[in-house]
């Protein structure tokens, strides 16, 4: 829970950011035709049907509200340095590690790596890293996902290469390593013992339901595991009930 003074300190900086952002977008709005324009001798835009009229009013209003927030923050004693914003070291570490994990997952792994594999790695990292609140495990989890993301992005930055299987193998190796590590250190921890099942079953069931139940597109269809499932679904299983 944040105390009012901490909130006002945050508001002070947010208001400044908001005002700067409003000014930037007002400048971008100026690029949209406004006022009476004339194209090839034909009047095209008047102020009231310009695409800029609503955004212009919006960003002016945002700037004003930002200024009002700034005044409120200053009056409440919120003007000041960036130090006392109520974020302790533990919270910063927690957010930074989750940020790295999510960025690696969405930004690098989902487009390039088999979806079952990368989702299993995500689940394993998040449960291992954040269940129990151990700071070292958080850093380890972020390190593993970060490494997977960097390798995948580094090997195949261009969209044309996203289907290549090299990074799938690397992610599989990382996943196996993490699962073995969690089982060695499980020592009666129910969640740690259940982790491999949750990590592997949840994405497999979800992705199969999506692909074969709802017939939807799924990310990285040609991935290491999903390609095999898809092949056997159409070649081995489907003929059984199709006769």
């Amino acid at each position, binding site marked *: 829970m944040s105390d009012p003074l901490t909130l006002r300190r945050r508001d002070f900086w947010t208001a400044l950011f908001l005002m700067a952002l409003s000014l930037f977008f007002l400048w*971008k709005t100026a690029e949209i035709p406004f006022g009476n324009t004339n194209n090839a001798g034909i009047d095209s835009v008047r102020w009231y049907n310009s695409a800029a009229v609503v955004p212009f009013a919006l960003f002016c209003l945002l700037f004003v509200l930002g200024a009002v927030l700034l005044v409120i923050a200053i009056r409440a004693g919120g003007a000041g340095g960036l130090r006392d914003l109520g974020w302790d070291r533990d919270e910063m570490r927690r957010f930074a590690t989750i940020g790295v994990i*999510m960025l690696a997952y969405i930004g690098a792994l989902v487009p390039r790596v088999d979806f079952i594999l990368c989702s299993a790695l995500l689940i394993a990292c998040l449960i291992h890293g954040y269940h129990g609140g151990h700071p070292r495990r958080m850093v380890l989890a972020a390190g593993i996902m970060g490494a997977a993301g960097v390798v995948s992005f580094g090997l195949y930055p261009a969209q044309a290469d996203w289907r290549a299987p090299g990074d799938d193998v690397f992610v599989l190796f990382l996943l196996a390593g993490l699962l073995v590590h969690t089982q060695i250190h499980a020592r009666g921890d129910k969640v740690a013992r259940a982790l491999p099942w949750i990590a592997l079953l949840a994405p497999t069931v*979800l992705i199969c339901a999506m692909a074969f139940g709802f017939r939807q597109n799924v990310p990285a269809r040609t991935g290491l595991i999903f390609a095999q499932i898809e092949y056997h679904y159409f070649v081995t299983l489907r003929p059984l009930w199709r006769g």
Partner: protein
Amino acid sequence: MDFLTTQLVGFGGAFLALILDPWSYVYITASMFLGIVFGALPGLTATLAVTILTGFFGNKIPLDYSLIALLGAYVGAIYGGSYPSILLNIPGTAASAATAMDGYPLARAGRGGEALGLTTTASFIGTLIGTVALLIFVGALLAVSRNIASPEKALLALFGILLSGALMSEDLVIKGWIAGLIGLAMAMVGLDPLLSEPRYTFGWSYMLSGFQVVPVLMGAFAVPQIIEGLRHVETGQMVALRGRIMPNFATIRRHLPTIGRSGLIGTGVGALPGVGEDVAGWVSYGVGKTVSKDGANFGKGSVEGLLSSETANNACIGGALIPLLVLGIPGSPPAAALLGAFKINNVIPGPTIDPEIILRVVAIMVLASLTMFIMGLFTARLFVRILRLPQTVFLPVVMVLTTIGSFSVGGGINDLYLMLGVGFVAYFMNLMKYAIAPLVIGVILGGLFDETFRRSLLISGGDLTTFVTRPGAAILLFVNVALIVSQLPFGKRLVALFTRKSA
């Protein structure tokens, strides 16, 4: 009278068609189960349940089944929030926060089974009250709303954003409005609706179609919830569930006036644009405390207090659907997710909506409340066991669900980048006590506001008096201005002076 008969006959037909279709039961049971689980697990919310199911079912199955799944989850999640409120003193959803005030003391007194039986019955009756109001008022309001033109629509959209900003803000009201304006600004991205002029696309073709609703919903509601929930939390000691979970009809009969009053309050609050079930629960609880003879015992295990909040939060669902279906303005954050589902199915709620859809929605709500009642009474112990699941275990799975849902609607990786970007921004906004619901409502209503505001100006040749010369628009403009003034220091002093005089 004719109108009521037509509505009832139409509802009867829709309900019959619904209960004769075996697939209805499959979807309603599965979504109700999922909804109650989402509501019961602290860290997951009703909005998240509807948002994730929008990603999953939104445009994959026929609209009727999609609505069954989404409304089932909505009703189930609002009800499911009462489990941890009563047994753990931790509200499963914000809507059940008031329930904990009396539910937990009742459970500690060994009346947990009775409390759950009462909340199940109250939620059932509350949902039905909201649904009846939906059936009666939507038809009547639709007839009125056909006379609404662009100026009124623009002012209504603005009212929805302002009201939601004012009522949903935990800290300063100005922050709620800022959130709403940021949402409106996000809706400006892409080709503008009248001239197809590109705005803020930064040369990226993906941005030409603007921000897609589902990734924004997922980002705004799911990602911050996941980031916030991934921390070690010692779950409080769960109170042992004693007694049978059965409705006590004698108690219910004795408290029928309270249930009726709370149902009406819940429906009324729900009908206000952008105001959700949590506000409904607290308003009803506050009114109950003031008017009830048992008011002094509220917060100490009062059955009336429990019924006040639980009836109202479920009645709010029907109320929240009224502005959604009549005007295309969501009455609550989960209703905003429902609007997303309508949009991706190319159904535009508002004056032009097919009345058949409204009758089907009413029929689904009745089936959903019946299913909730039955599942609540007979499978409650299963949901109680689920409460023991730590959030660090289920939130990673929710992250995968969110990713699949967001990807499958648009089918593009860019939607995932958008989801993550919006998610990080929403997380920081949460941290600084900016309400997220006005932002989402701003994104959803931004297009409508832009289009109708400019169309009004276009038709009037740039004459701004068009917003005061039309009676409907003048009233709405007055309401908007009054809302803003009432939040200013001067306005607050005026309101305080007025209320002191009238007291």
